[in-house]
């Protein structure tokens, strides 16, 4: 069954374990983000968009992979929102929407050719998470 | 058990001899092998009758209410033998200022589980004259007037031991134990869950059948270390709910619900109520229900794990669950 965008947003919340309603829109996550310039949507936007149920754009955005998963935003957030986990949840869902869930070493060169700037940390963390 | 037993008895004698204590609360050998009774020994000589074996299930904590005060008045100290589970009751009584701690010397004694003579009888043994613990440590040979038989210890444990809370003592001045604490034994809430899973009608039928056996002998109440009121509301004609016998089936319910409620958050699950009930009513199912509810509603809480704890019913948080969670509707 096709899920509505709202259901997907709910799924993001469930996977991330993050309560986006706690966000008070201070922007500390984005202020602290070292990959801010690399990402089309910034951490605070992620949180706001998921809260509003707008996840399609996020799922389609290739720059979500640029999040370093450094967890600075999680560490610094005064409200315990955990934006990095929201980003990670988007990534998981994006992965799931693709054929199969897995991520094999063979995919790495292809990804690199598509985007030579992709941070190594992102690859490693994706590899840890999605290798089956 | 044998080894611990010898050391316990020797140590009690020693403490009495050297004057650390002048009384020893323990279990006194009875007419049969299984009927030792709680007893306060007052001389070293009398300690010849002290036993500590598989049939010393009685919890001695409650006896400390009177005896700790009496010991203080006499300028002495009373030694009490406490099994791991008994220490919870002792702590709870300390929390409630019922025991004069300074007059008590707690000798924690290791326990491998107590046997229930009634459960041995239930296995079909009649006229039991003795049991021997077999070398495997797992079975008993039962001698009867009508021949011998064998029974697995696990099958005849007292209910509280079947669901032992653990082998660790929560309080002691001195410890004699060979047991490693392996944590709780079995799922003590399984019985509660089983009932919860039944339909309300079946639950009602279950309790109706169990409680209709109640003869209101008050053994559960009088054995309970939490039910230590000087005068129980059910004995107090001025309370408005005094009653002496189960004249109507409602009275049993009233008695047992109110009793469970009065000890909620204070009950240490010592299991004495079930052990002493002459009608074999599984009274622990009331108390464990409350312990389970409290754990689920307000976070894990073990009454008597420490002295001085603030019990869940004399406490609150601003975001506690609403009673609506258990009564379908209501609240905000």
């Amino acid at each position: 069954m096709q899920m509505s965008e709202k259901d997907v947003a709910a799924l993001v919340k469930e996977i991330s374990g993050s309560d986006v309603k706690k966000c008070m829109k201070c922007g500390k996550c984005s202020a602290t983000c070292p990959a801010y310039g690399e990402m089309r949507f910034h951490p605070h936007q992620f949180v706001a968009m998921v809260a509003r149920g707008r996840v399609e754009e996020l799922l389609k955005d290739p720059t979500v992979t640029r999040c370093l998963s450094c967890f600075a935003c999680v560490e610094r957030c005064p409200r315990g929102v955990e934006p990095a986990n929201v980003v990670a949840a988007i990534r998981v869902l994006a992965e799931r929407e693709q054929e199969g869930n897995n991520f094999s070493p063979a995919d790495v060169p292809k990804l690199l050719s598509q985007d030579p700037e992709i941070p190594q940390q992102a690859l490693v963390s994706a590899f840890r998470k999605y290798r089956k | 058990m044998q080894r611990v037993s010898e050391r316990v008895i020797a140590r009690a004698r020693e403490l009495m001899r050297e004057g650390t204590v002048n009384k020893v609360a323990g279990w006194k050998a009875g007419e049969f092998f299984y009927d030792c009774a709680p007893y306060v020994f007052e001389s070293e000589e009398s300690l010849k009758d002290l036993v500590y074996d598989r049939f010393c299930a009685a919890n001695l904590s409650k006896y400390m209410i009177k005896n700790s005060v009496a010991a203080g008045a006499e300028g002495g100290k009373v030694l009490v033998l406490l099994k791991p589970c008994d220490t919870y009751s002792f702590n709870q009584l300390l929390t409630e200022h019922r025991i004069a701690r300074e007059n008590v010397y707690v000798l924690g004694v290791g326990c491998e589980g107590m046997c229930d003579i009634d459960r041995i009888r239930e296995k079909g043994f009649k006229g039991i004259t003795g049991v021997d613990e077999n070398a495997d440590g797992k079975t008993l040979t039962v001698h009867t007037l009508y021949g011998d038989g064998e029974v697995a210890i696990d099958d005849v444990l007292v209910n509280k031991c079947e669901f032992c809370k653990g082998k660790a003592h929560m309080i002691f001045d001195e410890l004699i134990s060979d047991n490693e604490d392996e944590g709780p034994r079995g799922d003590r809430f399984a019985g509660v869950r089983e009932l919860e899973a039944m339909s309300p009608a079946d639950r009602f039928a279950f309790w109706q059948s169990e409680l209709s056996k109640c003869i209101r002998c008050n053994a559960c109440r009088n054995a309970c270390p939490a039910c230590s009121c000087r005068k129980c509301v059910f004995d107090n004609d001025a309370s408005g709910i005094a009653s002496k016998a189960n004249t109507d089936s409602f009275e049993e319910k009233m008695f047992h619900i109110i009793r469970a409620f009065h000890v909620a958050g204070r009950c240490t699950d010592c299991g004495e109520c079930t052990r002493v009930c002459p009608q074999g009513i599984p009274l622990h199912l009331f108390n464990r229900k409350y312990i389970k509810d409290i754990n689920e509603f307000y976070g894990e809480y073990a009454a008597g794990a420490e002295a001085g704890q603030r019990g869940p019913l004399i406490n609150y948080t601003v975001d506690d669950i609403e009673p609506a969670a258990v009564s379908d509707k209501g609240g905000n």
Partner: protein
Amino acid sequence: MAMKKIALTQLEQLFAALSLTRKVYLPVEKAGQYDYAPWQPGLTYHPEVLHTVKSAKSVFFPQSEDLIRYKRAGLSLEISQQAPEDEEFVVFGVHACDVAGFEVLDRVFLSEPVDSYYKARREHGTVFSVMCAKPEETCFCGTFGIDAEAPGGDVQSWLADGVLYMEALTEKGEALLAAVSGIVSEVDDAGTQAAAETRAAHKAIMERLPLADLTTDGFGADAELLPLFNRPEWKELASSCLGCGTCTYVCPTCQCYDIREYNTGKEIRRFRVWDSCMYSDFTMMAAGTPRPDQMQRFRQRFMHKLKYYPDNYGGAFSCVGCGRCLQKCPISMNIVKVMRKLGGANHNDK
């Protein structure tokens, strides 16, 4: 009257036949425990069960019974009295000890002033005793001179090889057996022999019981009251007593009761309930209780069974050695321990 017999497997038919004309009480299992309750189709007798939790006295002297009801009617009081039992019933499966227990109660309730409720039940009830199948280590009826092999009552019976041999002892008993003559059959010599053998085997066991040596020495009408009363050992005997009423309520001879009232909102019910001398409010009076200490209450119970009652009733003891209290006391204190400590070799005169 000659002995009759019936196969154990046919007992249900006997109960069914009897219940046409009267209520039949027998030990019935409820949630793992046996107590006397009316027979219903599907229920049968379990000879292997030695004791009901509450003794058979509960049939003649129930734990709770209404006496009178009263309510306001305008400015006056409307009072209605509970009618005493007026229907026939039979109590089946009573063992020798409980039958002896009835005699203990009879001396109290049937002597003046007669207890009309108890008397009515005794008159309308027929006691059908059965010799106990397997006495246990806690049994000591022999101590009180009870012949377990002749359980007594109106009809007494013995079980041998799946057959119940019965014999009427009273007119009531004869009438009862006559009522079921179509179901019970005559007993031949072999049967008489079998019944005698089962009695002999039983006697042999009785002699081997661990409490067979227990005597009433030091107690009874001949014992001196005050020295016994003042024995210092009472204190240690009572020291662990929790003050519950278990021993009292399982006892076949305890006969104390309290009269209480319950306001239903529409009327007042005055009823009586078993009381226990172990309770702190026992014989509570306006000025307080005469026995404020648990030791005194504990002593009262055993002095009554072993001294006061014998004094009042021609030397008979108010204990029948059924052993229920030995099995049920939460802290394993009981009359045997009391008798061992204060009587026998330890008694005052020795």
